[in-house]
């Protein structure tokens, strides 16, 4: 049986806002922040950010909202300011934060509680699985 989306929201735009998804509205709002994070693929740029965060953010013309979210290490605020997680992950890397730290920060859990929550999803694996064929 085909699983159906949990909500009755069928309008794509509404669904995007509800999840939320990184679409044109967010991409427009977040361009500068994402451009800065994209620059962090290069170590010299990561070092420059660490050496003078204010100057580096100014160079990329972060909006005040974006600058505040970065200063406060507030991931949800970065997302609201148009940050995309694929680029933000590079900023998180500078702070030594992995995806589970990010998860904890965003959900308000401790990292241990977040990790424990991840494990509980294993209980939902359907038991009625097609048996695995042995390697021929």
């Amino acid at each position, binding site marked *: 049986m085909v*699983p159906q989306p949990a909500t009755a929201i069928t309008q794509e735009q509404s669904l995007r806002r509800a999840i939320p998804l990184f679409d044109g509205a967010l991409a427009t709002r977040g361009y500068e922040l994402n451009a800065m994070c994209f620059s962090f693929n290069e170590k010299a740029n990561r070092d420059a950010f660490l050496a003078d965060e204010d100057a580096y953010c100014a160079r990329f013309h972060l909006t005040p909202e974006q600058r505040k979210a970065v200063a406060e290490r507030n991931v949800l605020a970065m997302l609201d300011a148009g940050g*995309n*997680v694929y680029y933000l992950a590079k900023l998180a890397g500078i702070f030594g934060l992995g995806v*589970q730290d990010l998860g904890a920060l965003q959900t308000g859990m401790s990292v241990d509680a977040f990790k424990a929550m*991840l494990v509980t999803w294993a209980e*939902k*694996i359907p038991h009625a*699985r097609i048996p695995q*064929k042995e390697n021929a």
Partner: protein
Amino acid sequence: MMAKIIGGYFTSHVPGIGGAIMRGDQETPYWKPFFAGFPPIREWLAEARPDVAVVFSNDHGLNFFLDKMPTFAVGAAPSYDNADEGWGLPVYKSFEGHPALSWHLIDSLVRDEFDITTCQKMLVDHAVSIPFELAYPGVESWPLKLIPLAINTVQYPLPSPKRCLALGRAVHRALQSWGGDERILICGTGGLSHQLDGPRAGFMNPDYDMFCLDNLAANPDALTGHTAEQVAELAGTQGVEILNWIAARGAMGDVPLAEVSRNYHIPISNTAAASLLLEPA
């Protein structure tokens, strides 16, 4: 002799896997159930000896930025380097390309009305490198050439599952009309369900994952009943990487497929991780 599609290799590509390999954590209790999926795949590959891998994956902010974000990009480079992605993974080995076959694919796809972006230079990220680190651990150099296809899973609108399956099928037609004698491996990387961002971070959906794993081989069209947005809701915001699997499945062609190997494990990092190997029955 005709080029031959010898199989389809699907796997998650979570960056954390690269960290585990770097640390040698393959046999720890946390990682063992995931790495356990790969010995059968390695044995099969040792036997099947593919020459070329046609790999569907998505860029994670290394090669593409929002200034020029392609829906579908096809590599046509003589070689593909990995590079620093900014979060501490080792820089992985380069891949040799196959420009002649890339351009054959590109010609065929454009004639089939796929509006691809052609990349004569292209960095590949962990989404391409980690699957081969898993498949060929410890090799000096990759034993096969690469043709990378990147699908936009970053910025909406994403291509629909239906369009991705159609892309894969068009790749299949292109491979069918190629005059070489290569042994071609199709790869799809990413997923399964996971969400990194927002208040729903940590979300997974084993039901949807199982639906995908159970239908991919025999009934891939079943996966095209959802919009990309619905997939994001069902599979999590990064779970949309299943689009890479759907396109790769299409590239195997509409032939009966046998499941050589399957593994599914929760959690790896924030992700429901899977590996799957299919071959023409």
